[in-house]
């Protein structure tokens, strides 16, 4: 869901996704590429190649319509889950 959310904001290349993700949450960097590839295989992303000024051309990941739908679904599930957790913990949340 985090990867979907990142790429939903703007198209990104592989290394960029890994770095951004690793800077915000505690994640093992080398697990990100397999997830990217899996999600692309499932049709949540599509890729395109863009030339760069330095080095070889880069592969960019772009979210698909199906990817956006899935992201909405996951976000909704995640919010419901968090609301439940906050309620259990007795804390405040936006809906209470």
């Amino acid at each position: 869901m985090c990867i979907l959310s990142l790429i939903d904001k703007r198209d990104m290349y592989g290394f960029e996704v890994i770095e951004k993700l690793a800077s915000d949450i505690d994640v093992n960097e080398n697990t990100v590429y397999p997830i990217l590839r899996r999600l692309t295989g499932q049709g949540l992303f599509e890729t395109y190649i863009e030339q760069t000024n330095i080095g070889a051309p880069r592969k960019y990941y772009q979210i698909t319509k199906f990817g956006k739908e899935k992201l909405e679904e996951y976000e909704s599930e995640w919010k419901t889950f968090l609301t439940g957790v906050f309620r259990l913990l007795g804390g405040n949340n936006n809906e209470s």
Partner: protein
Amino acid sequence: MKADYIRKLKDQLEEFEASRADIDDIINDYEQLYDDALSTGKTDDEVYTFLGDPNGVAYDLIDTLKIKHHKDIRNKVIALTPFISLIIFMILGFAYDLWHPGWLVFLLIPVSAIIMSTDRKSGIIGLTPFISVLVFLFLGFQYNLWNPTWLIFLLIPITAIILNTSFKDMFVSLSPFVALITFIILGTYFDLWNPGWLVFLIIPMLGILQKRNKIQMLILELTFIIAIAFYLYMGYVQNNWAIGGLGFILPVATAILFGDVTFTWNMPKGAERKKVIILLLTILLSIIVFLVLGIVLNGWVYAWQIFLLIPVVSIIAFDKFRFTSISPFVAIILFFSIGYFFDSFYISWLAFLIIPMAGILENA
């Protein structure tokens, strides 16, 4: 470092028999990731940690790969071989009354499993036990040459060494086998057990050739030649082999002086230590049992089988245990023992069926 990383990843993906398109795609992506990571100032070691171990990466990607179609064809060939063999066997039997040696066609089953389910190199190594057994049985039954034909079984480790060792190290690795074969032939046909054992000296003499210090190398080789000449002179001219043997103190002392022979015991620790001890004990035990069976019971015909215990123990101790890996050795022992001791070679070939059966059960 980058080339090394990419090569390892590519090798592992090829071993999974991933499609060319998948391999190219992943390799391109990882080349890009590697370059991007390097451009941020990371060292090669840091990039390695960042991207992960290439073998581990390949395993993580396995569910995203399309496996080549020919693997399915191979599996079909393996599955069909028993039926094809049975049809050929029936035709040979009913039409030509060749039930024996027509049963040999059933050897196609394990042979096809070995050829089809492994790469070319492993296939050749896997076939050597069959070639060895067939040559051994043929020369044994036809010419009663059980000894020294058992030496043919050395073909198994020799083939493995030739196919897996660099050209430079090949001679040193093969020297123990060449020495053993020469020693047995000299002993059996010319009764030259002594001084035939001297051929074993080619093992250290070839090893010494790889010394960096060429002067020390020449001196050491010279001491061996002097010791051998002295031994032969004392034995043949003075008829005193025991005194002649003292000449070998010279190369040993020189090697100690040059630091080639040290008495430190670099035994690995923990679990590795236990494994090494088990393997060494197995080798020692195999040699003792082989010699006892051969000399005391004149059992050279079947005693060689004890040596199959060495690769089996090695596989169990050092590799991930898979019955598929040890099944060829178990099959040979069953095939030969049932055939030889119960005079039932016409039925003992069935033992070879455990090889494809083990493969199918473990890979299912």
